């Protein structure tokens, strides 16, 4: 799926969590809200190896409807809002504004920059996962920071702070092009869900970090401490110190020009 978001109404007394953590049964741990899923694409047979919400029967169905059906089968009380649309710079703010956080589950760079810029504009954290071949990366961009456990007004870096320029197009590729082991996507997807839960439940430590995973590595995981946001960042930087303006950005051109696969994925921005 291109991206999905969660909007909780924290009707449970989450602040009691730490106190009663020993006693409580975690599956009583709950959040109410709406889960939005945005994607313009239909289920392909080649998706099934890693996008485990879909089934052979639903090949050809809109991905967001297939995902909503899978979630309904597991838990019919969850409210899912399936949005069959390609995310573009024209609709991103409107589509994502109703949600408390954004999950980046995309497979292409232009959408990753678009989601990051939109998350900054909306002031929401972006839980970003990526997977290729045997490797994965996980990061929360625009993270609400805490110091000594207390909320601060500060935010962690955005995607553009860390990667002001996309990698050379020659070195980029989507999962369909490069391949990815389904279980790598599964590890990263579950870790994204955990970061989202920690953020919504107030359990996140509020320290920006990047988790790198390599299925063949020893050790397989490496956690990296990240910088603060970059004052010169055109997206999240300090007014007057920004270099460049993202309003002018053509996301596809920025990432190396019109490549047929990106256009096919609906990013003819």
């Amino acid at each position, binding site marked *: 799926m291109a991206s999905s978001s969660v909007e909780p109404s924290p009707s449970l007394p989450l602040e009691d969590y730490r106190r009663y953590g020993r006693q409580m049964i975690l599956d009583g741990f709950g959040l109410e809200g709406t889960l939005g899923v945005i994607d313009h694409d239909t289920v392909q047979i080649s998706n099934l190896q890693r996008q485990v919400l879909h089934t052979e029967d639903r090949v050809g169905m809109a991905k967001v409807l297939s995902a909503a059906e899978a979630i309904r089968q597991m838990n019919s009380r969850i409210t899912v809002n399936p949005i069959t649309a390609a995310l573009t710079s024209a609709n991103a703010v409107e589509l994502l504004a109703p949600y408390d956080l954004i999950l980046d589950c*995309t497979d292409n760079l232009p959408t990753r920059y678009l989601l990051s810029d939109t998350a900054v504009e909306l002031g929401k954290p972006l839980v970003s996962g990526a997977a290729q071949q045997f490797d994965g990366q996980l990061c929360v961009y625009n993270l609400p920071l805490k110091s000594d456990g207390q909320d601060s007004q500060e935010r962690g870096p955005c995607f553009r702070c860390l990667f002001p320029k996309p990698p050379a197009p020659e070195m980029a590729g989507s999962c369909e092009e490069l391949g*990815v082991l389904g279980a790598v996507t599964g590890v990263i997807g579950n870790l994204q869900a955990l970061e989202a839960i920690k953020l919504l439940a107030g359990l996140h430590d509020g320290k920006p970090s990047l988790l*790198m995973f390599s299925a063949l590595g020893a050790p397989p995981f490496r956690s990296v*401490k*990240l910088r603060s946001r970059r004052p010169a960042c055109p997206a999240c930087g300090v007014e007057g110190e920004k270099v460049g303006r993202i309003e002018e950005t053509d996301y596809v051109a920025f990432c190396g020009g019109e490549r047929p696969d990106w256009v096919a994925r609906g990013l003819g921005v």
Partner: protein
Amino acid sequence: TSLDIVMSTITVKVEFGGGLELLFSNQRSHRVALPARVPVSYSNPFSPPSAAGAEQGIQNSEDAPKKPVDLSYLIFWLRDNLLKERAELFIENGTVRPGILVLVNDADWELEGEGEYQLKDGDEIVFISTLHGG
């Protein structure tokens, strides 16, 4: 609680990820031995990257002024000694290309002084590009 004894070379571990390993013989992990002190002129100010590669690279002249080896020196050393192709995908305007994240012992190099970080024996330096599939 410990005293450093002056060494003439140090060894660091260098790792590449997120596709950058393709520029370095598709090998992710490297051990690199570097002189403990290097000429001042080769990384500050940066020499611009050149198509000629190693020919314009780091030279150790005996009487040039020296400084402790730093991360900038390592970057040029990698270009001149390990890089197999397309230097412009690794170095741009005298430093690593902006799309590359540099990590010093599991911390973003910006927290460590970037190119001016003085390398220590046993340091682990990682260069990664962002992954974007999913």
